[in-house]
């Protein structure tokens, strides 16, 4: 118990009408004024505002308050704000407790009397609790200056380069044999139509060349320990069987492969072309080092290959089919997750015929078709070898759909317009867009839409019902018929086309859940990684020192992705340059007078923060390792472990406060 007399100030916030509309704020304030130890109780429009905080600072001096309770929004929003106000006011910031009467009262209840009563109960609980609060100091943890960036798409690349250019050492880990991600597959980018490769590949080479970047492709993070400033990561590097240091990138081994014809579906081109067992994903791949695919390489399957590739490599001896995977241990202070997205699997909407009709394509496949370095060398020819005369682009496949994904994938409208333009450019075909709404909120987007309208591309408003080859008349013969209700014309139409392009949406990667657990962060309901705050902390996570960039956080286009990557890099740099972070003091500590050394607590701690000190036969908590979950506190059989800010007695008081009129 605190030594000096407890003098509590209680502040109840209107939050404009957010709270006041449902909770009788005056009644709550008057109620609080009558509670024991409360010497001052105010209500105010916006407690979080500067004048609101100043009110607290002033009152601490004028009424020498030594405990503060603020009843307003969620502590996740403004607990820090008010603690700072206490500090400035000359009071220990932890002589404070916050009551959530907005998110958990006014916004979720309708009946004024009940909401007001609940607010009073919670305030009484806080007042009873805060009287027991002790002054606490935040600890400091040094920040390791190195950064781990996971994912080598445009987001990871940009974040890595930004940090590296600022002189920070970056470990960039990419799952695929090359960096570049989805962007590397694109032909042009909207709305400017500049060549994706032209803007991406220089950055890719820059990564490869940068002295501050350690690039590990074909690698995965398998384990992460530690905490902000001091993460320990384990990276598993798969063998590519071609030594990155010895290989010159001459690619003669590819030609030399015993497979004269490439036979293996090429995943970079989404199976639209074939590759050999030894291959390079695409011409500008970084690193410029081939990969051997053990699944298809004869030597791996039978051991009876002439291994002409090794001959071809000759003196360099870069090819080693005995190579094994490597495990790297690294220490970093911060992590940027840029693990990206995957496109919606069109097979999940069978009524659009993907996989059933060869001439139904996904947008990403068409990106490759129109790409000069693509499977057809930029020729838009269909699987049956014909050039399409008419093309239908179906929007919102796997987006804005109760049956698949509810969210808008943000990029489909724009890339559909882009593809419409490019296909028309390549084939002169007649093009129909089937859309629910055309969304062009970005810079230059609407203008691009207008441009397309002027290019006589057709736009039909309506969600496509089905794509079928069941023809009614000669005009539909040999074509795919798109059935759709034209909601502008107001009737159902049948549009026969040669080629159908499905504008598939963006969704979280299949392994998003594992990655989330690996890095101990949260996912939103849709499965994208959850940012700490949608507005105020969009690239932060709930785990300090771990930041988000790009589509792993939600669908976005390249400009937004790059911007976010820059922001994430800046957040990491802010920590690194500060050199340390302050840790919350809500850690556990052992009351050695009570501890009997039974070791129950030691096994409770997932961070191995508790150990038995043999000399005194008592357990001790390493407060730097303690994350303040309090599991050991509940488990301690003799009550010898206590948790700052969550002392048993404080919680008992809170419970009794809630119930004292029950």
């Amino acid at each position, binding site marked *: 118990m605190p030594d000096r007399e407890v003098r509590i100030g209680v502040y109840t916030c209107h939050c404009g009408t957010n709270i006041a509309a449902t909770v009788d704020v005056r009644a709550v304030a008057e109620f609080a004024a009558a509670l024991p130890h409360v010497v001052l109780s105010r209500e105010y429009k916006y407690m979080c505002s500067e004048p609101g905080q100043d009110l607290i600072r002033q009152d601490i001096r004028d009424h020498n308050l030594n405990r503060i309770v603020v009843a307003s929004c969620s502590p996740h929003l403004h607990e820090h704000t008010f603690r700072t106000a206490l500090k400035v006011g000359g009071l220990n910031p932890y002589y404070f407790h916050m009551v959530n009467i907005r998110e958990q009262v006014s916004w979720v209840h309708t009946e004024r009397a009940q909401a007001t009563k609940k607010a009073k109960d919670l305030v009484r609980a806080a007042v009873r609790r805060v009287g027991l609060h002790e002054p606490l100091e935040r600890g400091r943890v040094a920040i390791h200056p190195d950064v781990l960036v996971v994912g080598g798409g445009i987001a990871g690349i940009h974040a890595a380069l930004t940090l590296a250019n600022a002189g920070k050492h970056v470990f960039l880990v990419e799952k695929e044999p090359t960096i570049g991600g989805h962007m590397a597959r694109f032909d042009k980018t909207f709305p400017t139509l500049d060549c994706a490769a032209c803007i991406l590949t220089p950055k890719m080479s820059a990564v490869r060349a940068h002295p501050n970047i350690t690039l590990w492709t074909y690698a995965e993070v398998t384990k992460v320990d530690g905490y902000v400033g001091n993460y320990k990561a384990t990276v598993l590097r798969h063998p590519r069987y071609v030594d990155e240091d010895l290989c010159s990138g001459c690619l003669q081994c590819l030609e030399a492969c015993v497979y004269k014809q490439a036979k293996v579906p090429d995943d970079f081109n989404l199976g639209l072309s074939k590759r050999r067992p030894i291959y390079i994903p695409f011409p500008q791949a970084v690193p410029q080092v081939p990969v051997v695919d053990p699944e298809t390489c004869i030597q791996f399957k039978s051991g009876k290959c002439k291994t002409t590739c090794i001959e071809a490599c000759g003196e360099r001896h870069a090819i080693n089919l005995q190579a094994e995977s490597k495990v790297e241990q690294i220490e970093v202070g911060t992590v940027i997750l840029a693990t990206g997205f995957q496109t919606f699997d069109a097979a999940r909407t069978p009524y659009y015929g993907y996989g059933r009709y060869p001439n139904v394509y996904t947008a990403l496949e068409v990106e490759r078709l129109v790409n000069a370095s693509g499977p057809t060398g930029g020729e838009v020819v269909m699987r049956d070898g014909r050039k399409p005369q008419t093309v239908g682009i179906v929007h919102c496949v796997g987006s804005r759909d109760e049956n698949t994904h509810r969210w808008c994938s943000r990029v489909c409208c724009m890339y559909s317009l882009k593809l419409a333009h490019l296909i028309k450019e390549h084939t002169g075909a007649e093009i129909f867009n089937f859309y629910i709404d055309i969304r062009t909120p970005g810079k230059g987007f609407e203008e691009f839409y207008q441009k397309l309208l002027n290019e006589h591309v057709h736009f039909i408003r309506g969600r496509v019902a089905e794509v079928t080859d069941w023809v009614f008349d000669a005009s539909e013969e040999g074509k795919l018929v798109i059935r759709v209700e034209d909601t502008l014309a107001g009737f159902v139409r049948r549009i026969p086309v040669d080629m159908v392009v499905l504008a598939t949406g963006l969704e979280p990667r299949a392994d998003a859940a594992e990655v989330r657990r690996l890095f101990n962060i949260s*996912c939103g309901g849709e499965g994208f990684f959850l940012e700490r705050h949608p507005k105020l902390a969009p690239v932060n996570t709930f785990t300090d020192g771990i930041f988000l960039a790009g589509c792993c956080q939600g669908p976005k286009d390249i400009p937004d992705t790059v911007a976010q990557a820059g922001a994430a890099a800046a957040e990491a740099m802010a920590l690194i340059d500060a050199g340390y972070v302050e840790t919350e003091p809500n850690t556990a500590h052992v009351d050695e007078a009570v501890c009997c050394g039974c070791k129950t607590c030691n096994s409770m701690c997932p961070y191995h923060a508790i150990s038995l000190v043999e000399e005194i036969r008592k357990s001790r908590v390493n407060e730097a390792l303690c994350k303040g979950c309090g*599991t050991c506190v*509940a488990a301690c059989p003799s009550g010898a472990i206590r948790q700052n800010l*969550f002392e048993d007695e404080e919680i008992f008081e809170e419970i009794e406060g*809630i119930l004292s009129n029950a």
Partner: protein
Amino acid sequence: MPEEFEPKIVAFFCNWCTYLAADLAGTSRIRYAPNAEVVRVMCSGRIDVQFILKAFAKGADGVLIGGCHPGDCHYQEGNYKALRRYRLVQRLLPQMGIEEERLRLEWISAAEGDRVRVVINEMVETLKRLGPLRKAEGERAADLVEVA
């Protein structure tokens, strides 16, 4: 009872999942019964069985524990500790004359704002069916001291 019995629920929510879900319910303006009042702890693993029994002794008609889904604990496995304790308390309560339904444990992730509504509303219904939990002996025993 003169007017309809309004059960009182003490809810212990973990800071990272269920408390955030309750915040999300707020930002999403999801409406639910006002009978539950939240005590925020960092992790469901912090919830000492003493807290639960204290709540019942002081007049709670029900106690709700909210934590992260299995495998999702912000502290890796605190929620499993909570689960083990919960399973054992559930064996104790009936011996103490308290129906099992009065104590509920729910895994509610930060994204499941609506789940908060569903769970609390369900629990209020259950408790209305069960009626108020009579005062515990601990309370009445205090009378002896007063008259002493």
